[in-house]
């Protein structure tokens, strides 16, 4: 058992499962958005904001935001533990990454629900 305190779920198994579930959600969201853009070639502001006013789209988008936050945390945490061997540098990078993810998540929620 190797101790860890900055990984997303404090467990390799839960991180591994979370990485896969969030990947599926992000894939579905990407396919949906790309398909929507392809099927609406003359997209205007009202159609676009109308889409994001619907509750199901807001839930789907929020789910995608949370997924990308978890996915990025797990993935970048792994990268830092592979390549940053100095503890000071690694903890610093991990803190920055987690803070940036938090900021982006709150910002995303504000854009989605604020209007």
């Amino acid at each position, binding site marked *: *058992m*190797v*101790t*860890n305190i900055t*990984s997303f779920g404090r*467990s*390799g*198994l839960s*991180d*591994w*499962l979370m990485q896969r579930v969030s990947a599926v959600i992000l894939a579905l969201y990407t396919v949906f958005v790309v398909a929507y853009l392809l099927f609406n070639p003359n997209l205007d502001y009202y159609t676009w904001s109308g889409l994001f006013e619907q509750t199901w789209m807001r839930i789907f988008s929020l789910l995608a935001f949370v997924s990308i936050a978890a996915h990025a945390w797990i993935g970048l*945490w*792994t990268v830092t*533990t*592979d*390549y940053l061997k100095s503890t000071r540098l690694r903890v610093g990078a991990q803190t920055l990454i987690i803070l940036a993810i938090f900021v982006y998540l709150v910002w995303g929620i504000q854009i989605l629900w604020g209007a």
Partner: protein
Amino acid sequence: MSNLQVSVYRYNPETDSAPYMQEFQVDTKGRDLMVLDVLHLMKEQDSGLAYRRSCREGVCGSDGMNMNGKNGLACITPLSDVVKGNKLTLRPLPGLPVIRDMVVDMGLFYKQYERIQPYLQNDTPAPAIERLQSPEERDKLDGLYECILCACCSTSCPSFWWNPDKFVGPAGLLQSYRFLADSRDTATRERLTSLEDPFSVFRCRGIMNCVAVCPKGLNPTRAIGKIREMLLADAT
């Protein structure tokens, strides 16, 4: 022209300030020798060349090395399998500290092997004769017990290069699954608990370098997948 161009990694920490590559011309007399035979011919030219070998038939796992960029056992690797353009480059197994020339310090590799407790654990009273297995239960151990611990797989794995102190590595995990799959072992829960962190098993990214180099044709990636399935089944 039967002279083979061989480039060998040399390093003697007592006399050399840095490792270097030494060139050899080896007369193979046109034969398709094993790489280990070529090393013997080179040792006749320079008796200071250090490498490990023992059984010379792929059973002991002593002469694992990097031949033209790919790990394998020198004793069962014919020149025709690795030589390109009459050139052969020999390096020690990557990622482990070099003691001298082709001899590496396997301490970290063995430490990870020790960590997975590679022995049968059973807390029930021993029966009068022996613990029996059905043929089907025994079949589950095929493809697992054959590992000779040559370290070709673990030292070809980038995850093991970056975290050899935390990631068990393909060789250790193959053996870990060998005991997890054994119907006579009762320490399954304890074994799984000790592997659940983000490093021990989950640092594997499934790139299958281990499968590509295993001289015994074993599949550590499949065993790692099975461990993940067991962990998932146990924890959900």
